[in-house]
């Protein structure tokens, strides 16, 4: 494995399976009376969050703490960043504090990549702009494998705002590595220009794609990133690309419904679908902790001399 986790594309099939298998062992720990392992005692993990995030930051924090690492949370609001400090200067400060790993979320694509060149510790990308969110893709793959028993040949349909979604990009890259067949379904305005080069199929009709899906992953409509009119009205989007109970009925019996959260209930997903037994939305959150523990263990748990 690389020393950093910046992109899902950096993971070989063997790396990805190692992370999933490790997470599988660590997931057992959730049932134990003492949910703590001494493995990363004395190591420091810094959560460097330039964008708002609740679940990802808490998930990384819980993962690091369950491995006994010390966690420092650094959010841009109300910090030296608000006073105009550059990313590099912040990085050097963290370096001086002895961070063994930096978990970074940043609004600019490529920020984790830059950071990796400045610090000695491991860098884990927790979401950069519209680029990537590799641990989300790993936890999604983990959830699919747990629910459906395999990833090879699995038909996964990812629906919605692909253009602004780092989750979609990381998932497409990782799932292709793991042998799943991915189809993106979105309004043409919400697909990236370069989508033709991605290892996946593209469609525009959700109802036609659903009967052929083992997994349907709904993406949040990221209104905060939308600076143009990508679709006429939210109501129209919801009618064409939202997953309501009638559409969910088109899915095969065994199919699961995923959402990376936070959800806009009534926009991309109806409340009754989000709360149905085939929804894995809550599982995804608890699986996130196991997968992030696996990533932190594999990056930090061994000797530092590894390249």
């Amino acid at each position, binding site marked *: *494995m690389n020393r950093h986790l910046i992109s899902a594309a950096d993971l070989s099939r063997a790396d990805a399976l*190692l992370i999933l*298998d*490790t997470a599988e*062992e*660590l997931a*057992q720990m959730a049932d*134990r*009376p*003492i949910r*703590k*392992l*001494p*493995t990363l005692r004395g190591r420091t993990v810094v959560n460097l969050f330039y964008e708002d995030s609740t679940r990802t930051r808490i998930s990384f924090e819980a993962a690091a703490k369950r*491995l006994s690492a010390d966690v420092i949370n650094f959010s841009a609001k109300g910090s030296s960043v608000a006073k105009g400090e550059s990313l590099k200067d912040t990085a050097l400060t963290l370096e001086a504090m002895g961070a063994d790993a930096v978990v970074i979320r940043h609004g600019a694509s490529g920020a984790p990549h830059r950071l990796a060149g400045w610090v000695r510790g491991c860098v884990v990308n927790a979401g950069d702009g519209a680029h990537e969110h590799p641990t989300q893709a790993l936890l999604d793959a983990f959830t699919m494998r747990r629910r459906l028993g395999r990833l090879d040949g699995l038909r996964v349909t990812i629906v919605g705002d692909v253009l602004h979604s780092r989750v979609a990009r990381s998932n497409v890259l990782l799932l292709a590595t793991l042998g799943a067949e991915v189809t993106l379904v979105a309004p043409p305005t919400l697909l990236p220009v370069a989508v033709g080069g991605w290892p996946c199929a593209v469609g525009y009709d959700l109802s036609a794609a659903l009967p052929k899906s083992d997994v349907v992953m709904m993406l949040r409509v990221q209104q905060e990133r939308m600076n143009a009119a990508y679709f006429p009205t939210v109501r129209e989007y919801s009618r064409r690309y939202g997953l309501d109970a009638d559409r969910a009925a088109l899915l095969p019996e065994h199919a699961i419904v995923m959402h990376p959260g936070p959800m806009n209930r009534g926009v991309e997903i109806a409340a009754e679908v989000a709360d149905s037994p085939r929804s894995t939305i809550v599982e995804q959150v608890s699986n996130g902790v196991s997968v992030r523990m696996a990533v932190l*263990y*594999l*990056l*930090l*748990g*061994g*000797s*530092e001399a*590894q390249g």
Partner: protein
Amino acid sequence: MHAVHPADGDPSRRASTDLTASTDLTASTDLRASKTVWEPAEISRALTRIAHEILERTDGAGEVILLGIPTRGVPLAHRLGERLAQVEGRAVPVGSLDITMYRDDLRLRPARTLGHTEVPVTGIDGRVVVLVDDVLYSGRTVRAALDALSDIGRPRGVQLAVLVDRGHRELPIRADYVGKNLPTSQREVVRVLLTEIDGQDAVVLGEGGGPGGPGSPGSPGSPGGTAVR
């Protein structure tokens, strides 16, 4: 981890927790100047004896749980479990306890693959846990196992059964049940082969590699051989 050096740990342990290394290991030791010190029948007899000793020491093994330490402790625990069931006519819970996350030498090598932990549904609270492993060497694996156990529950007692005790303890730890005491030098390498994993039963004693390999005594953090065992 290429040359197998005695200070680099007992290779059977390494192979058992780091499966990726096992092929590497076979290639590097290639059992040069190695000799089989124990045949299948002797292993079987020793396990039967240990099973009887467990029954004696625990008044019929009513509260006993066998926990094997991956990789080779697990099939050994299952074999002991079968023998206990044959003699007493009732099943004894068998599980496995991975100790990777509790090792004291994690920082000396790349992150290891985790083994599987499976605690019987009965839990371990108030029971007598018999830890089962293939080779007892430095005692560090057992120390890690004791830490791991305390995070799972509070057994009434913990005992240790090993197939081979090769000496060279680095911690105040001893086994309650020993298949064979095998006097070794630290240069030597003890490997336990089991049908379930290796396709045959044997205990093999081989020469270690020459000094100066990776993880030699001079390497930081392993003065005089910090082998986990």
